């Protein structure tokens, strides 16, 4: 068929009502950018997407006169891939908000893109406290936890109970370095000292024995594991194997429920760790987990997945308050409004968002149960201590966030 003016007109006429309808019900586009295939897949990945959909379902978007479309992509733990996907989503696909992004390197790259395009960025999976520090911006909220919170809760608890000399095994990228830096500050601040550390290539390291022997030779009392996911799992397994655990205490600076599940209680028992959400910590958390669990293959959600649910819920509430059109138009204004509204959901309870983009809630210190104490799969933690929301995170004026100074 040759293209004539008549067919063009006919096509335009046919398309017109569709466009008009689309303008009638505005569509919010939420992009879930996460690790769907690498070391953080289990703690975020498909479970994070399920948590996102759970938030949409429970909020009842269609009843609120909104349409929501969800896009999912794998950042492959590569900052360049993450930034490229973010650009395509914002420019080509009209995405309004990106959630999740486990991996600090990718997280920092995406924060820059979200700011540049004036969209919203709700990070739940990355750890670096720089997201609300030197790299903070008007379009980013850091939801679940950060390196400062982990360092203060776990590091502080270790030093208090006699673990005053440390050796670090650190993943050699943004996250590992930030975690080591923040923990070092706490250890030294509390009168302890750091005797040394090794930064190993990430990703691609699976044998930690060499670093463990160096850690042991340093004579330090505490081994700080400034890494995450399978790396931490391998470090702990091998520390046990080489008898390091007889002489040093292991500080899991970032451990997720799925890591403990993978290690098994036999090996993981007694490890002290910090999480801001645990599925069995109160009635509301249990209720949420029971609703989500069938959708993630019977597993229990990690704090990152819970964070996706919590962040998306708050975003939707804000969209209702502001109007979807305004939310789509101005990311910075949306984030400003999100900071004004109080947060409340089943996972993290009541909370708030600070000027630098830090979501505030308590930090919980947990100890991994002995096999005899556990009632079955996923019953892994017992509570040790709670740091209240106003003390859990870095003081607002100490982060070096330019938005706060001005």
């Amino acid at each position: 068929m040759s293209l004539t003016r008549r067919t063009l007109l006919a096509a335009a006429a046919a398309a017109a009502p569709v466009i008009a309808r689309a303008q009638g019900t505005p569509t919010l586009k939420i992009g879930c950018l996460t690790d769907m295939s690498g070391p953080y897949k289990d703690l975020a990945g498909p479970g994070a997407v399920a948590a996102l959909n759970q938030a949409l379902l429970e909020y009842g978007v269609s009843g609120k006169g909104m349409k929501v479309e969800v896009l999912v992509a794998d950042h492959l733990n590569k900052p360049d891939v993450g930034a490229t996907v973010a650009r395509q989503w914002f420019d080509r696909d009209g995405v309004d908000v990106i959630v999740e992004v486990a991996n600090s390197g990718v997280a920092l790259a995406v924060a820059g893109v979200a700011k540049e395009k004036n969209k919203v960025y709700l990070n739940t999976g990355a750890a670096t406290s720089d997201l609300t520090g030197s790299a903070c911006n008007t379009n980013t909220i850091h939801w679940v936890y950060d390196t400062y919170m982990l360092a203060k809760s776990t590091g502080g608890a270790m030093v208090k109970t006699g673990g005053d000399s440390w050796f670090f095994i650190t993943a050699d990228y943004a996250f590992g370095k930030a975690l080591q830096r923040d923990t070092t500050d706490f250890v030294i601040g509390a009168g302890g000292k750091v005797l040394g550390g090794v930064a190993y290539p990430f990703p691609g390291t699976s044998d930690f024995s060499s670093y463990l022997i160096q850690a042991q030779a340093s004579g330090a009392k505490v081994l700080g594991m400034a890494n995450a996911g399978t790396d931490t799992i391998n470090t702990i397994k091998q520390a046990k194997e080489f008898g390091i655990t007889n002489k040093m205490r292991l500080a899991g600076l970032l451990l997720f429920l799925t890591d403990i599940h993978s290690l098994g209680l036999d090996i993981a028992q007694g490890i002290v760790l910090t999480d801001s959400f645990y599925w069995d910590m109160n009635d509301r958390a249990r209720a949420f987990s029971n609703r989500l669990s069938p959708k993630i293959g019977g597993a229990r959600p990690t704090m990152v997945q819970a964070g996706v649910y919590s962040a998306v819920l708050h975003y939707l509430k804000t969209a209702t308050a502001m109007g979807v059109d305004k939310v789509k138009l101005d990311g910075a204004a949306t984030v400003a409004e999100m900071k004004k509204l109080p947060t409340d959901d089943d996972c993290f309870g009541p909370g708030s968002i600070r000027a630098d983009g830090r979501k505030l809630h308590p930090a919980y210190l947990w100890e991994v149960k002995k096999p005899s104490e556990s009632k079955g799969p996923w019953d892994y933690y017992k509570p040790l201590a709670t740091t209240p929301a106003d003390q859990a995170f870095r003081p607002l004026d100490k982060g070096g966030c330019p938005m706060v100074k001005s």
Partner: protein
Amino acid sequence: MIMIFGIPGPLLFGQLLLGLINGAFYAMLSLGLAVIFGMLNIINFAHGALFMMGAFVAWILLDALGIGYFPSLILAPLIVGAFGVVLERTIISRLYKLDHLYGLLLTFGLSLVIEGLFRNAYGSSGLPYRIPDILQGATNLGFMYMPNYRGWVVLAALVVCFSTWAIIEKTSLGATLRAATENAPLVQAFGVNVPRVVTLTYGAGVALAAFAGVLAAPIYSVNPNMGSNFINTVFAVVVIGGMGSILGSIVTGFGLGVIEGLTKVFYPQASATVVFLVMIIVLLARPRGLFGKAA
């Protein structure tokens, strides 16, 4: 305390030993690759995925059927080896007449598919596999605390590597294999079924990878990505040793393990790259590798 290059002696000896242990894995994996390349002229990029399958089969045997570590050490290589035979017969054998590059691309694609399937089924954080009771514990060597299991790995690897070498270089079966590689039509004329020999060789190479996978299961978590962590280094080992050289891959495997171990003390950040640095230097000086025969 003795100091060597500013490093305490005991620490250095410990690292040498650990290097040997890692070298054992490099040696076993590169050995299988060398056998396959030497006999089939296929650059088997799926080797890492088959190594991972070995570990998973051991885990599944234990989880579903209660079959323990030592039977798995025999069963898993047989099962994965049989899988390799099927792969060779159905897919890989179609590429023998084409350039190496096609085999490389095909096996690379296969490894992505296999790893993807396992990741979908079992997730990425890995599954626990206990060290068998008899190999639990550790021995104090004076300069370090040596887990018994790691000692066993080195021992098993040495035995397997040198028996493979002896079979290929010193027996009549090995002689047939080598002859079939040199001149297939002539060997066929003597009544040897060459395609079957080739298939079984591929199966044996795959079984070696699976054996290494079972050995690795209790040390690393049984994880769909465990093969891809190794495979790049192992290819460098094969290239440095000389493509297709059996002895070359064994010696280079252990040697590079030690070099890598030492790098982890002096400059840990470079430990992932040092193997490739060695590869560049070797290729510049001896393009056929350390043990490669001249064309």
